[in-house]
């Protein structure tokens, strides 16, 4: 039972078992292999779950049923789609730059995989507890734009190029306000390590503890995060009705599936960060002195809390997507540079003030 509440028992057990059987160098190697396999499995499972979830959420918002033929309630639809994509021909256009065209999906995919590293999934379950976790994630996640730019350029297609350029402008802009809103929480918690930030929310989540500035930062983070994910209403890079498919117009089969998967895993990463920073990560919902309530909440395992919060944020982002029309590219940049950016700067100053005056809980 204790394994569910604290994974450090399990991880230390595995670690000790390896140490007992082989040298420390081999131990690290084997652990890396196990972690890698776990990450890839998580990746694929998340991709399948999110595709199914997106289709179901969209369907219910549009008074439809969504997939309901393959498997019970259509749960195997995503698997069937994956098999279909695997069997499809991986087509490379003749005029495309072969090497870069094939490289781009791998860059995008591996970048979103890298961002999984510092995420605390549950108590004691973290791949790499780096002390600059927040900084690492914002650094790594901006590499994915390079993959998209390469994809757009190497396709040798005008739609792809336009989509890639839009994506470049968009991600570079929205990195700013996303970073600034993250800094607000870093200032509150006084640490860049994600595990420390989670630990600092033992008494309450930052969105409750941090007064209005934290709420503003949260809203900005969600908006900027949606924009960084290239999802509607900010899906300028794909913009189906304008650019047919944007940067992945020319991609088929599994290479298209990689972009697709990367999009969903990116969504998971962004929402996981949002949940970790603002909603307490794997910390249960605690209210100040209500010890009875807090005690009941403690019975829910931490990883359930983490995934629950993440999936809630994912659902919110899906809710956006299936409600709003798309912005125009100049309005998109106007929104960032004239609204989100100044607000988050002002917000950051307020946060600094609050932290110095110790007004937060």
């Amino acid at each position, binding site marked *: 039972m204790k394994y569910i509440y604290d994974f450090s028992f399990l991880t230390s057990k595995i670690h000790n078992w390896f140490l007992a059987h082989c040298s420390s160098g081999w131990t690290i190697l084997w652990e890396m292999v196990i972690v890698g396999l776990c990450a890839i499995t998580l990746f694929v499972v998340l991709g399948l779950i999110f595709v199914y979830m997106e289709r179901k959420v969209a369907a219910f918002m549009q008074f439809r049923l969504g997939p309901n033929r393959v498997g019970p309630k259509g749960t195997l639809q995503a698997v069937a789609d994956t098999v279909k994509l695997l069997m499809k021909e991986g087509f490379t256009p003749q005029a495309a730059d072969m090497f870069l065209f094939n490289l781009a999906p791998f860059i995008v995919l591996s970048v979103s995989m890298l961002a999984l590293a510092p995420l605390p999934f549950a108590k004691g379950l973290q791949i790499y507890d780096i002390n600059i976790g927040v900084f690492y994630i914002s650094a790594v996640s901006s590499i994915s734009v390079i993959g998209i730019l390469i994809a757009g350029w190497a396709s040798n297609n005008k739609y792809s190029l336009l989509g890639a350029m839009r994506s470049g402008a968009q991600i570079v802009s929205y990195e700013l306000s996303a970073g600034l809103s993250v800094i607000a929480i870093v200032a509150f918690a006084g640490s860049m390590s994600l595990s420390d930030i989670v630990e600092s929310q033992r008494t309450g989540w930052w969105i409750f503890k941090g007064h209005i500035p934290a709420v503003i930062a949260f809203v900005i983070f969600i908006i900027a995060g949606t924009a960084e994910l290239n999802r509607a209403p900010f899906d300028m890079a794909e913009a189906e*009705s*304008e650019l047919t498919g944007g940067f992945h117009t020319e991609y088929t089969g599994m290479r298209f599936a990689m972009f697709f998967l990367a999009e969903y895993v990116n969504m998971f990463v962004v929402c996981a960060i949002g949940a970790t920073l603002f909603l307490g990560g794997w910390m249960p919902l605690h209210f100040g002195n209500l010890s009875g309530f807090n005690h009941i909440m403690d019975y829910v395992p931490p990883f359930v809390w983490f995934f629950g919060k993440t999936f809630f944020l994912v659902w919110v982002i899906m809710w956006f997507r299936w409600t709003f029309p798309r912005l125009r590219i100049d309005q998109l940049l106007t929104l960032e540079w004239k609204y989100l950016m100044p607000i988050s700067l002002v917000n950051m100053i307020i946060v600094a003030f609050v932290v110095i005056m110790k007004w937060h809980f």
Partner: protein
Amino acid sequence: MIDKEEIEDLTQAHEEDFILNVGPQHPSTHGVLRLKIKLQGETVTHIEPHLGYIHRSIEKMCEASSYRNFIYLTSRMDYLSAHMNNQACAMVVEKGLQLEIPKRAKVIRILMSELTRLASHQLWWACTGLDLGATTPFFVGFRDREVILDIFDETCGSRLTMDYNVPGGIMFDIHPNFQKNVHAFLKGFKKNLPEYHQLLTGNVIFQNRTKGVGYLSPEDTISFGCSGPTARGSGVSCDIRKWQPYDGYEDVQFNEVLETAGDCYARYLVRMREMEESVKIIEQLIDNIPEGDFQAKTKAVLKLPKGEFYSRVETARGELGVYLVSDGTSKPYRMKFRSPNFSNLSALREIAVGGKIGDLVANMAMLDLVIPDIDR
């Protein structure tokens, strides 16, 4: 096949010109319209429509078929206003025969026209949402349209190309359930219409996308021959139902919807309010369908006297004119369809040049182009 001029055109293009083919297969051209656009970054600097991908030469086909038959070819022009197209053709034949159709047929024709208009505008609204990137409006629009199509299915026998008009009236009498179903539809639609506004009209993103985009001045509107909601959005009164009332529209109380802003948002509002007007018209008539024949007596083989006949109707997209030249035989000598989309398309260059690609898509959505109507 690339024609000669196009090659010249492309070779004359500057090195830095970015020429993009929008269509013929493109999600927002609603069919097979091909636009060759020149881009400066994201800004559209030149638009050239290339037509003919779905040209079936309906005018030539009409010359080979009898006066009873050619009506049904025209359902395939503007398939969203199929009833009005058929009506225009039936009217031009009736004009030639100097046939007065029974009152009941007229009222049913109006009812069907207005239901078609509603269905068409609902589909337009649905697709507008889709063009601007919102997917849910598509299903909201189709939900209500489905009810109308079921009504058509019951009374006319088919859903989209209803083929309900014949020279001299309508093909058969309305279904006994017709009035009941229309009442049920009106009740549901009136309840649902605020949802349309809730989802799209008030949305700040939508307003930013459409307000001030694609301005068309009233002078240009007239000069380009625009009609329908496109022209009425610029404040140009051009409703044929008011100008030259046909088939009993003169007895119906309704307002011609006019907006003066001339941008995409104005065209949007015109169509939204037109839906309300159509509901009003249907409400006036649905309980007052006069008794009597639904079809005037006609000969088996129709022969029109020598001469020229012209009939105009207001379809969901604007003025449809049917110009018939008869040489006295049982087949038309020359048919010409003045289709609303063809003229509206010529205004596209005026309104979309200088905007972004996103504006081009919004403009095309608000012109509500149906490509088979342009190509015929």
